[in-house]
């Protein structure tokens, strides 16, 4: 079944299998920027993407629901030559170790800051709590988000 949606600003027509999840579809079309899927139940948060400006774990989202919607993966946030503030801040603050959970986390942080450019520490923690990062212990990730918030405040 051909399904049509907007992926990182471009219209795509992908051939979906019945019962396929959005994660499986994206990976099958070589969107390897979406990581994860070994829990297949939305527990780890690594495969998080934005669907119509809402962060969702793509491993539990069936493709039928995505028709006509706007999907953003980490590639829609920034790339190596042109990273956004959050990506840069995560690198600078030591918030990345193995990096496997990072695209999903940055997606959730991006969503938080778009909706609330001045979040409290508790709100940042709450956003990160839908992700499991086994490497960092979260502290430097919280600091990285706080730095971004600071920079936005200073209009940088």
């Amino acid at each position, binding site marked *: 079944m051909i399904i049509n949606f907007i992926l990182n600003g471009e219209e795509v027509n992908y051939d979906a299998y019945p019962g396929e999840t959005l994660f499986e579809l994206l990976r099958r079309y*070589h969107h*390897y*920027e*979406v*990581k*994860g899927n*070994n*829990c*297949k*139940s939305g*527990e*780890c948060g*690594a495969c998080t993407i934005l669907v119509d400006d809402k962060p969702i774990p793509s491993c539990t989202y069936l493709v039928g629901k995505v028709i006509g919607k706007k999907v953003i*993966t*980490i*590639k829609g*946030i*920034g*790339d*190596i030559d042109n*990273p956004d503030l959050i*990506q*840069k801040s*995560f*690198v*600078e*603050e*030591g*918030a*990345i*170790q*193995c*990096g*496997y*959970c*990072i*695209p999903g986390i*940055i997606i959730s942080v991006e969503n938080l800051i778009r909706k609330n450019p001045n979040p409290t520490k508790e709100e*940042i*923690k*709450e956003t*990160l*709590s839908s*992700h*499991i*990062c*086994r*490497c*960092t*212990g*979260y*502290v*430097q*990730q*919280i600091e990285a988000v706080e730095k971004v918030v600071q920079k936005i405040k200073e209009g940088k």
Partner: protein
Amino acid sequence: MSKVLKKEELIKEFNVVGKNVEKYDGLPLATGQPLFTDDIYLPNMLHAKLLTSPHPHAEIVDIDDSEALKIPGVKIVLSYKNVPRIAHTTAGQGYPEPSPYDHFMFDKKVRYVGDRVLAVGGDSIEIVEEAISKINVTYKELPYVLDPEEAMKGEVIIHDEEDINGLYDKNKNIISHVDIPIGDVENGLKESFYKVEEEIYFTQPVQHTPIETHVTITYFDEYGNLIVRTSTQVPFHVRRILSKILEFPMKKIRVVKPRVGGGFGVKQELLIEDICSLMTIRTKKPVRMELTRKEEFISSRLRHPSKIWIKLGADKEGKLTTIDMRVLLNNGGYGTHGPTVLFNSGSKTLPLYNKAKNVRFIGDAVYTNLPVSGAFRGYGATNGYFALESAMDDLAEKIGIDPIDLRKINHIREGETSPIFEKLGEGKEGITQYVESCALSKCIEVGKNEIEWEKWRGKRIKNNNFVRGVGMAIMMQGSGIPLVDMASARVKLNDDGTFHLFIGATDIGTGADTILAQILAEEIGVPYEDIKVYSSDTDHTPFDTGAYASSTTYVSGGAVQKAGKIIKRKIIEYASKLLNENPENLIIKDREIVNFNTGEKISLREIGEKSFYDFDQEQIEASASFVSPKSPPPFAAHFVLIDLDIETGKIIPVKYVAINDIGVVIHPNLSKGQAIGSIVQGLGFALTEELIYSKRGMALNPNFLDYKLLTSLDIPEIVVKFIETYDPTGPFGAKSVAEININGPAPAIRNAVLDAVGVKLNHLPFTPEKVFKKIKESGVI
């Protein structure tokens, strides 16, 4: 001693070491590049999956796969019927491995719920899953044993094969046994003024849970070489073991490690590479296999559940005279890492209190019909410190002194040694060594102030149903395995004046590529940005034992520094010929070779160009290997402030302080990350994490909803500080930071509860129901 001063003199000269340079793979990771094993697609790739045992102990009478093989798209079934039978260990360790050879690719017997029975390869994971559901395995169930003390009675024999070797006592299920007496423990205890009578400590099975589970893709290249692309900590060990058990020439195997999504020890193990490889050899097709989260929990590896008995004795002044420690490790169905984790639970803990004249360490690693324990960050030390550092607080209580003072009287210091270094090594005798850097006293002092010890200790301040307590623990680890771990590095100069660094070292997210590039840049005298790193490819990079035992900064860093020294000398020799100048007058500075007498300069770019095309043509390059007779211990002092809810038994960590001596800090941000990551894993180990089994040894909670990992909402304020020392044997004075900090949370929290309510928690994890029961029994509420 003046070593700290020496460090301060030296550190002024550092341009790259000690700086927060950009993590080598930072932006590629933050932008979601296809860096991981699974981030490729190969045409005609097969998907592989395991069928695992539903029984804790059974003989496989027969496997009927005839219906499965009829399904279109099913290509191959591997089982004991059609694979080579070669005894080996899955542990990725230096050769010959200290672990017993008790594992076969597929065996006719299964030894735990989750053990390998067979594997199926087919065109898609759905086809393979359907095939697995059509396979009929006939088992003959055998009596099973889950408790190691029961197992040691030998009523159930878990490994009765004729063709295995390297274990201590087959008939009693004992993999490894150790009994090291130093002095006279019985007499020591008798004569002690203060005594801590025997207490027993229990640690639980926990899983590493890397967010990337084990994943491997294998295929043949255009020359018929088997390419093994895999998420491993030990590419060279994987190559060696694969060649042996598949009877396939090592020359034709190339193991490539892309970025790895976390390891923590569980990827120091050959778990699925053999299955993919054999399927590729037999079908000539690419094969992919990825463990599901559930499989990662039950069919990979865990931290050894353990039971530890400990007694302490001290003289009138509080000086330890006697430590008597017995460790029993539950290794599960296979003996991987058993001897070494067992020895490390003593060798990495007991030297901390080197004043004790009488020390006994008795231990056994034992088979049971539970999932398999292996390497996990801390590697036995984490288990040992829970008992030792808890007992130290009990001793302080007996003596009536502050636990901090007790530790100050007794801990090891710079210039000192411990007989344990010599008696306990890696499953065998160790090597005598003297501690050449130790700032533990200062770590304790700084941490004591940071946590405001005097303000909280013994005060039992109440706030509604919460009681505040403060606790601490001190610890050490090692830096690599002395005279076993070897690393090597190769460096070449390019015609733009930059360098390529080739290392066997295996970055599994720790930042190894970054800090090794820093070490090279510092040694040569060029900016970090001028180094390009290629790592962990058994065809293209030189040998390295791998990412384990807190070895990479120290051992691989040692090799990189040596290679850097050699290429620097070669560049200066080349420049001296070119400039017709005495090499002693030349130095490398700011990408130039400078004659400091005349001020004459030539750039590295010119040297690179001329060496390729113009003058005395050669590739300027260097390679070096490093193996150390030492394993300098890093040290740490941990402090934790808790609120204990006496109505529910819930422990809330409020503030955690970890002061570290890791030698010279190569990269402050990455080092801090290693420390905090370890602490949070350690807090999970202390408070919430536990794999729970049914009476038949079946894991009941192998998923992230029921196995409770800490999230960002569960962590306290965490303060990490480094007291820098200079270890003369490490690269630019560095030691290690990867493991040590996981050892502190369990005993520190246990001791904080003791401070808050006077209750001794000796059974991990400290879940609310357990704590509540304990405090109720003790009459506190």
